[in-house]
Each structure stands twice: as structure tokens, then as C-alpha cells.
């Protein structure tokens, strides 16, 4: 059995099986979705065992070799993303077992989530540019529908804006692919990467700028960010957690990373653009988040701001920059999905997520407040947690590479992040309330996944310890720093 195609096959198969088997039974559909996700997680762990010691697995779909076949590849970087994606989505699915009971037609919800996971896993293992396009379109289409899942006026409005922007980004990427195919006659990434150096400069820059516009829209870097706060703040909480925690990173961050580092190979101009857009989104996202009244909207702007750090990390490059960006991705994926789940829990019990209407959540929901604290401190970067180290590493890398201004900006935005989260904690969570203090905690079935995510957030700080780092992170960082698709010899076929 071929291990690399399994993450895609499991989820695609599941998304067809689940609606056939459980037409109306949302609970059984949820159970099945969780089981399939556990299977996906197991496959990613198996892949990690094979790949993390070094090297990569390559396979060709259907056994057809290079010019005809579609290449799939799993290396340290993609397997790390696979692990994070599957772990987060498993916990989010467990949470939605209870949360989604308020909605009708929940079977459709699980089908769409499975479809989105199939798309995301497909993007992570593909080595063919058209394959990547098809997979991220599957994931995006599922996400557009998921944002509108509640069928409220605001949800559909957000989904409309999100869909139009999503289509624009796909069109830019498709245009770049047409250019690539017209100029080089191939869609296979290694073949294309070999041809890149022979292309005229003007064509190359046109393609690169189309890619950055397209994937920048997907990643919500600042001039292209307008859709993200609407979509992520109005969607049902598990969907927000999936979109903010992993979707923008897999579809946006991962693809930007692959294109700018591994295909075009550390070009100075691309890095300058990433540094510029990264600093811009870091600052604008942070400032906008400070002014938000709605909890979920604040978290959505904070996502833009934190993705700026990731972009800056790849923009700086080098061992430290790549390590920082990667650690920031991991820490943020877990803490942001935890935060959106906890906001969902607050909304579930209190009926609102406007911070002005919420007073003294701590008196009524102490456990939810505890995990919210953990998520907020995780993102703001309070010392033992992962994002503190990642921000520190990015700042050190910026200073080391001579970008002192950017390092200062990073510190300022880190302080800003901490300040808006502390303000939110003071006004909404720890403010005093008059009257009786009855406990109205969410059910254990919602608390348990949040506590599990919280435990993972606590563990992210340990990623930097040398033995753990050398097993999990170093392979991926090596891929980001040194690997180029053009070095991949055509004849290397593992398995």
C-alpha cells in the first residue's frame, strides 16, 4: 500500500462514504469523521517515522513515471504540516460533536470538513502544480460553503465576499500556471524549477508576482486581507478554528514557502516583498485587532497579524528565520484554534460574542476562561510557551540579518498583541458582576478537546529542546533552507 496517497484517499473516500451511510444521523457521521481523522493522523505519524530521519518519499500516481505521471512527494516539511493539520482537525471535530447540535443538516457539515481536509492534505503531498491547484480549489470550495453553513444573513454576506476574493486568487494562480505551461511545457514542479533559470527575467517576475498575489490573497497578507475578518468571525466556531488555525497556513503559508524558497530558490526580490507585506500585515492586523469589540473578530485580525510574523520569518531566511517561521506556525495553529473554540464555547453558553455584552465570564465558566487564557498567552508569547521562543528567534534572525527596524516592529507588535488580549481578559473575562454567580460551564465533551489543545499548546514550548528539535523541526528547516526542486533527480523513486 502506498503511504503517500493515503492522506488524500482516506478523506476523499470518507467524504463520499459518510453521506451514503448516515443520511440523517449527525452523531454517527461525527463519529465516522473522527475515526477517519484518527486514521489520517495515524498515516501522518507513519509517514513521519519514515521521513523525519532524513530523506523524502516520492511516488508517481498510477505508476506512470515522470512526463506522464503525477508526482507526489512527502518530505520533512510537508509531513510536519500533515501532522499539525490532522491533529488540529481531530480535536476540532471532537469539539463540534456537541457544538454543531444547534445546527440542522450536520451530516453535511462533516462531509464538507472531510472534503476540506482532503484538499489540504492533497496540497501538502502534491509535487505537480496543477494537482496543487485542484486540491486547493477543493479545499477552498468546501470552506466557502462552511462559512455560510449557518445560513444567517451575516454568514452569507461574509461567504459572498470570501468566495469572490477566493476566486480572484485562484484566477491569479491559474494565470501563472498558464504562463508556466506556455513557457516551459511542463506542470511538474521539479521540471519547471529546472527551467526557471533559463526564462527571461521579465517573464519570471510576472509569474512570481502573479503567484505572490494569488497565494498572498489566500494567506491574507495585508493589502489582500479584507475577506479574512468577515469570513473567520462569522463562521461557526469549529469552522473558524479550522480556517484560522490550519487552512490559511496550509493553502497560503505553505504554498508561499514552497514557491518562494524551493521553486524559485531564495530570490532576494521575493524575500523583500515578503518582508514588506509581512511587516505591513503584522502592524495593520495588530492595530485593527486592538479596536475590535467582537471577540471572534479580534481573533481574526490577530490571525492576520501573526501570519505577518510567519511571512517575515521566510523573508529573512537562513536557519533562524526558517526555524522561527515554522515554530510560529505550529504554536499559532494550536493556540488560535483553541481560542476560536473557546470563543465558540462562550458564544454557546452566553449567546453573544460582543465583548461589551460579556461580563465576568470567569465567574460562570472558570474552565473555559482557563483555556482561553492559555490560548491568548500562547499567541501573545508569554515565556514558556512556543510562540515566545518563535518570536524571539524571528527577532534574533532579523537583527542578525541586519533588519533592525523589522526587529523593533516585531517587538512592538508583540507588546500590542499582549495588550489587546489583556484588555479583553480584563473587560470580558475577569470583570466583576453583580447578582448571583451560577456555574454555567459547557459540557465535558466540549471542554475535553479544548483541554487537549491546551495541553498541546503547553508542549509547543518544548519544541526548542535540542533532542525534540532535531527529530521534529530540523528536517523541515533543512528542507526550507537548502532544498530546491531542481536538485531532485528524475530517477529517484522511493517505494
Amino acid at each position: 500500500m502506498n503511504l503517500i496517497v493515503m492522506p488524500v484517499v482516506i478523506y476523499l473516500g470518507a467524504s463520499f462514504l459518510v453521506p451514503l451511510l448516515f443520511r440523517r444521523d449527525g452523531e454517527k457521521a461525527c463519529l465516522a469523521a473522527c475515526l477517519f481523522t484518527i486514521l489520517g493522523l495515524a498515516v501522518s505519524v507513519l509517514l513521519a517515522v519514515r521521513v523525519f530521519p532524513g530523506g523524502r518519499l516520492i511516488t508517481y500516481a498510477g505508476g506512470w513515471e515522470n512526463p506522464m505521471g503525477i508526482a507526489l512527494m512527502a518530505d520533512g516539511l510537508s509531513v510536519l504540516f500533515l501532522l499539525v493539520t490532522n491533529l488540529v482537525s481531530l480535536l476540532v471535530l471532537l469539539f463540534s460533536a456537541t457544538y454543531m447540535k444547534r445546527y440542522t443538516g450536520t451530516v453535511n457539515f462533516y462531509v464538507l470538513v472531510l472534503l476540506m481536509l482532503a484538499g489540504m492534505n492533497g496540497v501538502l503531498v502534491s509535487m505537480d502544480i496543477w494537482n496543487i491547484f485542484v486540491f486547493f480549489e477543493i479545499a477552498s470550495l468546501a470552506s466557502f460553503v462552511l462559512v455560510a453553513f449557518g445560513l444567517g444573513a451575516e454568514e452569507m454576506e461574509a461567504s459572498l465576499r470570501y468566495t469572490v476574493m477566493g476566486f480572484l486568487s485562484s484566477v491569479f494562480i491559474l494565470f501563472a500556471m498558464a504562463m508556466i505551461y506556455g513557457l516551459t511545457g511542463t506542470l511538474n514542479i521539479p521540471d519547471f524549477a529546472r527551467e526557471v533559470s533559463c526564462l527571461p527575467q521579465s517573464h519570471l517576475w510576472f509569474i512570481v508576482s502573479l503567484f505572490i498575489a494569488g497565494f498572498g490573497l489566500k494567506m491574507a497578507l495585508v493589502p489582500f486581507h479584507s475577506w479574512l475578518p468577515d469570513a473567520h468571525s462569522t463562521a461557526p466556531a469549529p469552522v473558524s478554528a479550522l480556517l484560522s488555525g490550519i487552512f490559511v497556513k496550509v493553502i497560503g503559508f505553505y504554498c508561499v514557502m514552497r514557491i518562494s524558497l524551493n521553486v524559485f530558490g531564495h530570490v532576494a526580490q521575493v524575500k523583500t516583498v515578503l518582508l514588506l507585506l509581512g511587516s505591513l500585515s503584522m502592524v495593520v492586523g495588530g492595530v485593527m485587532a486592538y479596536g475590535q469589540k467582537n471577540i471572534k473578530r479580534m481573533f481574526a485580525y490577530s490571525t492576520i497579524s501573526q501570519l505577518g510574523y510567519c511571512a517575515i520569518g521566510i523573508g529573512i531566511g537562513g536557519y533562524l528565520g526558517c526555524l522561527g517561521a515554522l515554530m510560529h506556525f505550529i504554536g499559532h495553529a494550536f493556540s488560535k484554534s483553541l481560542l476560536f473554540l473557546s470563543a465558540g464555547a462562550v458564544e454557546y453558553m452566553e449567546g453573544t460574542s460582543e465583548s461589551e455584552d460579556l461580563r465576568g465570564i470567569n465567574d460562570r465558566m472558570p474552565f473555559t476562561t482557563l483555556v482561553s487564557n492559555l490560548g491568548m498567552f500562547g499567541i501573545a508569547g508569554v515565556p514558556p510557551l512556543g510562540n515566545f521562543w518563535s518570536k524571539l528567534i524571528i527577532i534574533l534572525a532579523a537583527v542578525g540579518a541586519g533588519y533592525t527596524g523589522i526587529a523593533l516592529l516585531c517587538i512592538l507588535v508583540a507588546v500590542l498583541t499582549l495588550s489587546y488580549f489583556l484588555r479583553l481578559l480584563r473587560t470580558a473575562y475577569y470583570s466583576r458582576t453583580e447578582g448571583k454567580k451560577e456555574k454555567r460551564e459547557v459540557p465535558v465533551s466540549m471542554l475535553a478537546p479544548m483541554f487537549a489543545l491546551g495541553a498541546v499548546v503547553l508542549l509547543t514550548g518544548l519544541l526548542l529542546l535540542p533532542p525534540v528539535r532535531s527529530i521534529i523541526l530540523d528536517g523541515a528547516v533543512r528542507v526550507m533552507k537548502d532544498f530546491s526542486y531542481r536538485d531532485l533527480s528524475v530517477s529517484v523513486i522511493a517505494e
Partner: protein
Amino acid sequence: MIIYLLVVLIFFIGLYGIVAKKNIIKIIVGINIVGYAINLLFIVLGYKWEGMAPVLTREVEVSEFYRRAVDPLPQALVLTSIVIDLAFLAFLSALAIRLYEKYATFDMDKIRRLRG
């Protein structure tokens, strides 16, 4: 060359529809035009003047086939792309109808409850 300019022209007409128009239906039409422009670009890339269908039969010489047959790959890609466009179109139309039920308008400026 002129046909590539035509593609770019269609692309920008569609882009104008998406960016400048306020009516959701017109935006959806713009989205379709942009999609068609890219599909046309793919087809034009694989096309050869005086070309033939890329099917090798007994009557056709291999050398002539190589010279005249159009590139089949872009056509396969465009089929995929059309299906994706169709999914977009179906979803957006359904969304437009549902939004009309909620807001009683197709005007994007009036569909604006989200702020900030």
C-alpha cells in the same frame, strides 16, 4: 500575438465586472468571464494553426501527427477548470438567491451588516 491580447482584454473586462460593479449578478457574470479568459489562454497555448485532433490513427503519419496535432494537455486542464468554475457558479448563484431573501436587494453596497 493578437489572440493573446484578446485573452488579456477579456480578462480585464471580467476583472472590471468583479471590481467595479455593485450588483451581485453582474459580479457573478464577471467571475465567469475571467474564468473563460483563462480557459481560452490555456486552449490558445496548445493550439496549432491548421491543427488536427490529437488522435493517432492508422491513416496518419507519425511525423505529420507530430507537426500538426494540437497539444491535448491544456484541453484536459481546461475541462477540470470548467468543472471548478461550474462549482463556483452554482454556489454563488445559490448564495445570491439566499441573500436576496434576507436583504431584498442584489446591491453589494446595501449588503453590508459586517463592519470594521
